[in-house]
């Protein structure tokens, strides 16, 4: 009886919290502009799926945005995960005072917000402003800290016997890293990677300052430009079509990896 009550309450909460927002986006992205302007939850009286999505793909810069988002997300995630794991190994094992000081700076970079304006200044000085490469470097530098911090805790909690034994058997350091460290760190790197993907894919603030011109625009930027382009009154059908297409790649990945994502986040996040 209590379980029935609990799940009824949860369902009643999930309807406005999850279901209605998603439904609003989906159903209104199928309507013509005038009908979508009513922002109702009913089914479309006239269907305009092909027109709406056609316009978003054509004028909304969606495909360019998709390519650009992939072009920055993949390198950032790969760089943060692998460079972070390598650094965590060093920070976890070395007793050098210099490295411990560096580790403290990594910790600071988690807590303190990135200084965006000097970053623009710096990238300009390096002639890297406005493009993907500068954005990737800046984002990597600001996101490494959290992965290093989580992974270093993991390394420290783990005895070094395995690594020593492998070294005695003649394994080189890179071999020890690939065969022992990476498998050991897999849970924490997975969790870090998931949060990072969500974070980078959805980043708007950094992109707004660091990426110039629609040729470099990632999906959030192209969504914003598209929505702001019709500022007088939003074309809700088109905005929602863009929102749906922008969110879809992440949702698709999530549906496939759902079990591991949830399990990883509930079990691996706070350990170490």
């Amino acid at each position, binding site marked *: 009886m209590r379980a029935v009550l609990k799940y009824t309450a*949860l369902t009643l909460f999930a309807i406005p919290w999850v279901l209605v927002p998603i439904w609003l986006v989906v159903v*209104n992205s199928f309507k013509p502009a005038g009908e979508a302007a009513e922002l109702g939850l009913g089914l479309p009286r006239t269907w305009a799926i092909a027109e709406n999505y056609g316009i978003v793909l054509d004028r909304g810069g969606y495909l360019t945005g998709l390519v650009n988002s992939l072009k920055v997300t993949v390198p950032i995630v790969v760089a943060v995960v692998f460079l972070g794991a390598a650094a965590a190994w060093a920070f976890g094992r070395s007793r050098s005072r210099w490295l411990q000081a560096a580790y403290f700076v990594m910790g600071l970079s988690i807590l303190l917000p990135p*200084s965006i304006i000097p970053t623009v200044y*710096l990238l300009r000085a390096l002639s890297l402003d406005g493009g993907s490469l500068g954005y990737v470097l800046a984002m990597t530098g600001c996101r490494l*800290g959290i992965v290093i911090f989580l992974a270093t805790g993991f390394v420290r909690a783990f005895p070094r016997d395995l690594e020593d034994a492998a070294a005695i058997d003649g394994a080189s350091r890179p071999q020890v890293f690939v065969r022992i460290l990476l498998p050991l760190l897999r849970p924490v790197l997975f969790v870090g990677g998931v949060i990072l993907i969500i974070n980078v894919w*959805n980043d708007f603030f950094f992109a707004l300052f660091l990426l110039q011109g629609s040729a470099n625009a990632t999906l959030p930027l192209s969504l*914003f430009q598209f929505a702001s382009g019709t500022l007088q009154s939003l074309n809700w059908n088109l905005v929602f079509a863009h929102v749906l297409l922008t*969110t879809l790649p992440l949702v698709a990945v999530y549906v496939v990896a759902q079990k591991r994502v949830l399990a990883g986040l509930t079990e691996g996040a706070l350990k170490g």
Partner: protein
Amino acid sequence: MVMRNRAAWLPWALPSIVLVTVFFLAPFLLNVRFAFSSWTSFRAEITWNGLENFRTLIDQDLLANAVTVTVLYAILCMAIQNTVSLSLALALQRTSRINTVFRSAFFLPTLISPLAAGYIWRGLLAPDGAVNSFLGIEWAWLGEPSTALAVVAFIDAWKWSGLITLVYIAGLNSIPKSLLESATVDGAGPWTRFRRVVFPMLAPALTFNVAVTLVGALSAYDVIAATTGGGPGDHTRALNVVMRQQWGQGFFGSASALGFTVTLLVIATAVPLVWWLRRREVAG
């Protein structure tokens, strides 16, 4: 043995150290300088000008309001997010098939970008939108000074609640079952068990979540950009919103001063909070 050789560790950490130094630490230090410098699009030369940027922002009635808005936003966002997430975590703590379905559903908003979340709720909360027609009222949630800030903070909280729920579930599941059982044997009811056992044991997760949500919300920008743009009037004009405006108008020094203010707020919030919660954690 090779593995004990100290110098040999450096190459492993070096790429990360270089990237964090150049792209986090250097901008951070430069910001301290720029915040106290005259630097505009009209005069590219950057010269020390003391507190002039802050004085200008205060004279224009921008700074005090932005700080108030940002702090209120952060507190509201943190409160909503942690209340919802902790409640959901308590309800969905046990790993069963049905709970997994609910966890998975409540995680969905986390995948949506804050910008998109802003557009979605702007649609739901429009004067003639679904929320008002359900409640049978007509209210411009985002257009009225009395509700705009709370609603924007709510949208931000909505976006992140799924992730925070999972961190709370991890925290709840790390509480030893024996502790709860012995409390039950001693005659503690559900509320007493929550207050005396669960809540103190949840301290690490609570520390993490309160700090993360507060600090994150101090950098608020995306949701505001998608919904109110800072309005009505200046009621949702948080520090980063003013920063972007100053930057857009070519006042780079003032913009840096606003960025520096965010950093100061983060330090002022995070340091005592982490210290206090850590102490409670040990005492609890």
